[in-house]
């Protein structure tokens, strides 16, 4: 018999989610949802999928924004032996590409702008009522999922080239989560109540706000707060101990002024390098330790450090880091294949390591990863372009975007170029500023030197 693992490895009465406002989907329920109730919600969603003739489909492009609705639909899709496609963004062009690449796909959303080429399940109007089913919650009916089931596929690139699919089997998800829990949480049996600021479709958001609640003592919340006051309000409503899972962008915003901040028990941060000074200030203001996590979409979380006081990273148990000619290779029993990391890694004598820059031309803006080469190829496809380049200026400013310097054909305006780029690139990777010039300072051999580019940039700044 195939090996299986529970859909939810929690006690039936353990709190898995905290709903901050009465949920129109789940009969007005508000506050804590236990694992048993959660499973009844998943079962009802499975009925809803069947009622919409979606049960025999293979792939669900899951765009749900409400984090609890995402958790429920994510699990319902898995329970139907289907695979969640975690799109890098909600753009229609991305939906189109996925639907073409994955035959038998459909969309689940709760208010996104969606394509109509494939079946769509609009969960924004779905309510439990019509699909509530009698669920026996004894051990026999507690759902188990086969270890080899392909639970989801995450996609890396923020640009719309052929982004590499990262296959996440059920065993990959529950084994990596067990390791993550050991290194990210404080090892108590007490349930910790979590606010997360990343979307669940992003690997960091998925690992922390979806998978930890399924397999460890974590209670997630339905919200996806953006502004500091939203994050503070979400934390305010939660029982203790409290955990904030975030990014450098959100943390910097939280400590930007002298607003009183609540005492927390744990803070986790990932997606882009965190400044040690910011880490120290976050620890002081929230009165707890901040752990920065190093990871990538292919592997998930891999290492941790207390950035306020530590430079070096502690690799997670269960992962092997090997120095090879083409870079550092990570392998693990739960990963379908070994992965060559995009960062240079320098190993220290005590087994810890330092990160020392990117191997490739990959850049990261606001947690979105893209290849400069690929982004420039997209620029070249713009019909109105004479010449141009997109690059990442070297700057102290951690939220700086990409910059473009372009020469356009007569009667082509900047707005149409930006509209084109916005259609093909993730918002975070759309260059800004975009400077229009008559020509680029190329050498006679056609090369564009960094020095000439930077001095031109200085002249262009208003």
């Amino acid at each position: 018999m195939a090996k299986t693992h529970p859909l939810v490895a929690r006690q039936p009465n353990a709190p898995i989610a905290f709903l901050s406002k009465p949920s129109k989907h789940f009969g007005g329920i508000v506050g804590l949802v236990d694992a048993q109730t959660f499973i009844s919600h998943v079962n009802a969603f499975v009925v809803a999928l069947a009622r919409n003739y979606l049960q025999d489909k293979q792939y669900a492009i899951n765009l749900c924004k409400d984090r609890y609705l995402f958790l429920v639909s994510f699990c319902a899709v898995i329970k139907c032996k289907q695979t969640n496609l975690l799109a890098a963004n909600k753009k229609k062009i991305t939906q189109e590409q996925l639907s073409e690449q994955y035959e038998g796909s459909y969309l689940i959303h709760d208010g996104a702008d969606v394509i109509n080429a494939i079946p769509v399940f609009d969960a924004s109007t779905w309510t439990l009522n019509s699909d509530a089913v009698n669920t026996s919650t004894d051990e026999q009916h507690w759902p188990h999922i086969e270890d080899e089931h392909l639970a989801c596929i995450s996609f890396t690139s923020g640009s719309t080239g052929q982004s590499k699919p990262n296959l996440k089997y059920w065993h990959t998800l529950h084994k990596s989560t067990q390791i993550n829990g050991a290194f990210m949480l404080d090892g108590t049996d007490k349930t910790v109540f979590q606010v997360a600021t990343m979307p669940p479709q992003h690997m960091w958001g998925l690992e922390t706000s979806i998978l930890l609640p399924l397999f460890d003592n974590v209670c997630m919340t339905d919200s996806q707060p953006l502004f500091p006051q939203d994050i503070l309000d979400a934390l305010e409503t939660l029982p203790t101990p409290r955990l904030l899972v975030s990014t450098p962008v959100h943390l910097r915003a939280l400590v930007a002024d002298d607003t009183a901040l609540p005492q927390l028990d744990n803070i986790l941060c990932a997606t882009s390098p965190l400044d040690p000074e910011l880490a120290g200030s976050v620890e002081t203001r929230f009165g707890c330790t901040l752990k920065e996590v190093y990871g990538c979409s292919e592997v998930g979380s891999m290492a941790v450090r207390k950035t306020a006081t530590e430079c070096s990273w502690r690799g997670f148990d269960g992962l092997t880091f090997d120095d090879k000619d083409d870079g550092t290779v990570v392998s693990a029993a739960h990963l379908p294949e070994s992965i060559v990391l995009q960062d240079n890694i320098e190993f220290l004598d005590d087994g810890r390591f330092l990160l020392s820059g990117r191997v490739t031309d990959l850049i990261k803006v606001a947690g979105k990863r893209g290849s400069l080469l690929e982004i420039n190829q997209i620029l070249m496809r713009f019909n109105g372009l004479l010449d141009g380049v997109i690059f990442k200026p070297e700057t102290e400013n951690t939220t700086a975007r990409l910059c473009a310097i372009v020469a356009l054909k007569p009667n082509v305006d900047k707005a149409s170029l930006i509209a084109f780029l916005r259609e093909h690139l993730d918002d975070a990777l759309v260059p800004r500023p975009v400077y229009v010039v008559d020509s680029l300072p190329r050498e006679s051999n056609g090369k564009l030197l960094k020095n000439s580019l930077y001095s031109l940039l200085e002249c262009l700044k208003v």
Partner: protein
Amino acid sequence: MTTQTEAELRMAELLVEALNLEDIEAKDIDPDEPLFGDGLGLDSIDALEIAVAISQEYGLKMKAEDESTREAFATLKTLTNFVANNA
């Protein structure tokens, strides 16, 4: 383009500063042009930066989840009016 009021110019300067809009001059932002999407083309991370800048400058704590915030972020004019009425 509609002429900017003095308060709108001040808000435009705050946006240019907070978002490093190096290729745009504050006085050139149309008060009625959409800030997000097809207009100025800002995104959610920009919204976060603007909220932080407004909090620092005017002491006003905006919430992304409020309907009024969504309305306020429509244009330079609506944002300026929102801050004037709530700060």
